[in-house]
């Protein structure tokens, strides 16, 4: 049983989320091939080829694959699917965009955002914003699965590299055209893979105060920055910082929630962190029910003070 794993990357570097999804994929079969779909992505393929336990890397390059648009990327996966028992991707925005399309074209019901592989056809996945966990078995001939990467440790890189095979792209129906990415350049660690996350909520009050209060602590700790939906909606933080049911799901060693009340939709994105710290002026805020360490008080005093103490 061979598994095909779609790599997450930006044509320059392989995302660590791929190594995490590989851990899940390795539990589903006896061999895993990694597909790098992109443009000018040979370096990514070379990194993928070093991941432990990979059988080989497939490299498909075409202009339409540069941004992994849904239609051509799904077509490529469908063209390759016949050789595999399962098609797997990390549940990133690319994985979530492409894999259900592959599933429909293969007439398969996808299993979304698994957090555990029970057996090659049986998985655990959270539902209702993580308030319940379902064990589901897929009866489909081919499994199509996205992986919640926060639930799996990354597979290590080995010393040796496996073979890289070039595959031809499956063409582009030309339905969609990439216009631009509006990504802010940052030196901070990636939110999805960071060891420490410092998050701010509605209490920050403005984009300036968010920057002045949260970022120094995050930078002091080498942490990624997160935010509640209320903070993103109000424009205090960009959308890619949102943690929660409809944002990113993170499981860092340390999550520091500053001025966040702890709505279930926010908890869905961070309650699997190893240690949770809450800073909130309301002693009854629900966030304290999940916090290992609670600090009651004004965040505008406590957060800078915490940064000084480090």
């Amino acid at each position, binding site marked *: 049983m061979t598994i095909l794993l779609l790599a997450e990357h930006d044509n320059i570097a392989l995302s660590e989320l791929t190594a995490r999804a590989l851990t899940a994929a390795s539990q589903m079969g006896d061999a895993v091939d990694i597909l790098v779909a992109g443009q000018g992505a040979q370096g990514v393929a070379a990194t993928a080829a070093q991941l432990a336990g990979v059988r080989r890397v497939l490299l498909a390059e075409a202009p339409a694959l540069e941004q992994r648009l849904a239609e051509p990327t799904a077509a490529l996966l469908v063209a390759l699917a016949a050789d595999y028992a399962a098609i797997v991707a990390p549940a990133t925005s690319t994985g*979530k965009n492409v894999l259900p399309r592959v599933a429909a074209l293969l007439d398969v019901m996808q299993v979304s955002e698994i957090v555990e592989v029970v057996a090659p056809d049986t998985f655990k996945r959270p539902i209702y914003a993580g308030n319940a966990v379902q064990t589901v078995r897929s009866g489909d001939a081919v499994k199509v699965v996205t992986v919640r990467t926060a639930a799996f440790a990354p597979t290590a890189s080995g010393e040796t590299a496996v073979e890289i095979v070039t595959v031809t792209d499956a063409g582009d129906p030309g339905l969609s055209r990439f216009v631009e*990415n509006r990504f802010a350049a940052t030196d901070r660690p990636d939110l999805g893979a960071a060891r420490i996350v410092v998050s701010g909520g509605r209490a920050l009050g403005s984009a300036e105060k968010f920057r002045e209060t949260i970022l120094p602590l995050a930078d002091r700790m080498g942490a990624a920055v997160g935010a509640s939906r209320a903070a993103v909606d109000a424009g205090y933080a960009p959308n890619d910082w949102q943690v929660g049911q409809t944002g990113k799901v993170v499981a860092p060693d340390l999550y520091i929630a500053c001025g966040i009340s702890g709505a279930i939709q926010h908890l869905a994105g961070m309650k699997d962190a190893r240690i949770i710290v809450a800073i909130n002026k309301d002693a009854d805020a629900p966030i304290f029910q999940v916090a290992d360490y609670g600090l009651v008080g004004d965040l505008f005093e406590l957060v800078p003070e915490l940064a000084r103490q480090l």
Partner: protein
Amino acid sequence: MKVLVPVKRVVDHNVKIRVKGDGSGVDLANVKMSINPFDEIAVEEAVRLKEAGVATEIVVVSIGPVQAQDVLRTALAVGADRAILIRAEVMPEPLAVAKLLTAVVGREQPGLVLLGKQAIDDDSNQTGQMLSALLGWSQATFASRIAIAGDRATVTREVDGGLQVIDVALPAVVSVDLRLNEPRYATLPNIMKAKKKPLEEVPVGDFGIDVALRLTVLATEEPKLRGPGVRVASAAELVDKLKAEAGIL
């Protein structure tokens, strides 16, 4: 251009659900149900397109039990013109939902399907992508901005790195994210008017589509609970604990 908006009836987002004691599922008896919040946003966007003269007619469709009429009436009250209820006692999975919607698209011939990026009960985030695949249409997911010009749509998508702008040919399937708009409330006169708008009911069996479940739910359990933590008195004490107890810093 006609716009089709699928809307799902789900547990209200304010309800904290409970897992049944025997692990057979989630207890939904007497729980408040509402329109999926993402679908509310999709309906609002369709209404704005109609107000802007881009959309000519808005058809909403729901697959589910007879009570799903309520979410259709809600959508009619904020401005949809017509509703279709596909009666199904067992809620079909996204693949079957997408197949049923494909049949509805065949009949209605919309130029655009707008739907939620995920339903907050099952959190699958699949239906729109599957529908787009089955139709062979262009796909734009997680939209936070939609601009339609002629036979193309420019869609701003919320992705992991920030925002991505793509330009897609119509007809298209567009799934919406929370920041696309703020849905209006239905006014009382409009709620009354909605009662007179057409709502057609079709049994799921009429479609001749296999809706058998492909996934077997073996168990449903409570998530791992976190033990209660401790309060610390100062930032200094917090740093001490993080170092000494948690071994983090």
